[in-house]
């Protein structure tokens, strides 16, 4: 390779690399630095220290929002897998091939509403006087209007709605790649439908489940919109606490420290799932 052509190759890559360095890597570095600084009153104290991280451990307010986030995220991930798997299986096995694409496209249609609007739509359904409340009154299951909005339940419903669609996609993609002969071979060897599923189909679709679960975990734990619209102010999730530091208190150092902690949690999740995430690429 000549020096000239190498230079030209760098010329192709340089704009993207510089953009990423300037507007992604640099901001992350700035944020990491800020997380070590402190805000005292209205002034920024630019001395490195661990005050913000200590505050995170000491003030139950911060720690609780992380625990809330973990609880909600794990609940959402598990519920979404449980709901999505049968749907993906039905799509792959029961729906005639030529209708599968259409069925799949229909299943992810609400993906394409605006994310903010989708959470708002659930507010219409769940709030007092909303569709569910009216339905329960009409049927006679309750005597007074009920409100499911502004609660953790509402946040979980809003999230599960979004991630069921996502997981259906990843699990379906995995299921249709399985050769039919595998299940047939298991049956020829005497396995019933349950044994075939548990010992053959499920382990082979684990990559699809894990890719979807990882995406769900990462997107869910970092999301501010759904808990803010549906969860109300009774309990805060980590992204809400971060936004509170930015918008209400203008405490960028504390917000940066919380963001670093959020990144660490996501990295841990990645390490935990890495085995399966790589498998999917092979």
């Amino acid at each position, binding site marked *: 390779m000549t020096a000239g052509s190498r230079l030209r*190759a760098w010329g192709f890559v340089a704009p993207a690399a510089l953009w990423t360095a300037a507007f*992604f*890597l640099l901001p992350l570095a700035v944020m990491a630095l800020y997380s070590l600084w402190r805000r005292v009153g209205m002034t920024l104290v630019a001395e490195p220290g661990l005050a913000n991280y200590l505050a995170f451990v000491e003030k139950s307010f911060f720690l609780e929002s992380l625990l809330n986030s973990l609880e909600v995220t794990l609940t959402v991930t598990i519920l979404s897998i449980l709901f999505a798997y049968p749907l993906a299986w*039905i*799509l792959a096995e029961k729906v005639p091939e030529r209708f599968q694409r259409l069925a799949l496209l*229909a299943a992810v*249609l609400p993906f394409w509403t605006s994310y903010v609007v989708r959470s708002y*739509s659930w507010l219409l359904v769940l709030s007092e006087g909303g569709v569910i409340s*009216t339905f329960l009154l009409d049927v006679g299951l309750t005597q007074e209007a009920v409100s499911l909005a502004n609660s953790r339940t509402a946040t979980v419903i809003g999230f599960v709605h979004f991630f069921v669609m996502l997981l259906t996609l990843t699990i379906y993609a995995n299921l249709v790649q399985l050769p039919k002969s595998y299940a047939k071979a298991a049956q020829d060897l005497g396995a019933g439908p349950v044994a075939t599923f548990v010992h053959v189909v499920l382990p082979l679709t684990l990559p699809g489940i894990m890719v979807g679960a990882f995406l769900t975990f990462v997107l869910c734990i970092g999301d501010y919109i759904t808990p803010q619209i549906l969860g109300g102010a009774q309990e805060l999730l980590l992204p809400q606490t971060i936004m509170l530091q930015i918008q209400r208190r203008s405490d960028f150092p504390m917000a940066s420290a919380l963001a670093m902690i959020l990144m660490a949690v996501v990295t841990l999740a990645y390490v935990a799932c890495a085995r399966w995430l790589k498998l999917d690429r092979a």
Partner: protein
Amino acid sequence: MTPRTVRLRPADLLAAAYAALLYGFIFLPVAVLVLFSFQESRIPVPPFDGPSLRWYEAMFADRRMMEALVNSILVALVSSSVSLALGFLAAYGLARHRLPGAGALKLILTAPLTVSYLIIAMGLLITFNTLGVSRSLLTIGIGHVVINLPLCFAILYSQMGGHQAQIERAARDLGASEAQVILLVAVPMLWPALFAAFFLAFTFSWDEFIIALLVSRFDVTLPVEIWNMLRSGLNPQTNAVGSFVFLISFLFVIALDLALFGRRRARSRRGAAA
């Protein structure tokens, strides 16, 4: 294989019921959103008393909303074009030349995909603040390129196979300049991937909220304007805007689907949808 004559067994009925239930769950909020956008009265909850188009009229008469709509289209068009151009060049450079440190470069270029938008938004906000850069549509666009560049790069890089490299070499042997090779050979061969990358980037920018909220000031995009509307509680005009956005995105998806799969459908195996 599914037999040609389908006998309905209890298990199939159960499967059908389950699918119906889940589709119901998936469609419910969207159906409610669209239905009550045609509400006559001021509150979008039952009973339905429409149909009426007054909230759509109110939406088109809302100047801030229309400005936000134009801003959104502008930011999405410019940011996805920049993402596509930078992503294409980087993919071309890395796929066609052997560079020292190529592995690390690929890792860095795709790294933003693994960081949540909130953190990217915060980093930009703090950096812009520190450097004294004022927040505007430009800063929103910069943020949107950060999230869409890795996407465009990854899509295009995965589509630049060795087969195309040979055709490009043939063009070069026949005397084409580097610019001619790119514009007349590489780009036309890649057009479905370029199209897909552009549309995906456009829809992501169009729908992106948290970056647009944090690095904007006076001029905002549509999701931020909708967010501001939510403060006034349930409001049929929000339904109208939401339904309108849904319609636009829906047309987008159909266009993308036709462009990508329409021609390939005949020879595609099952499971072509990703």
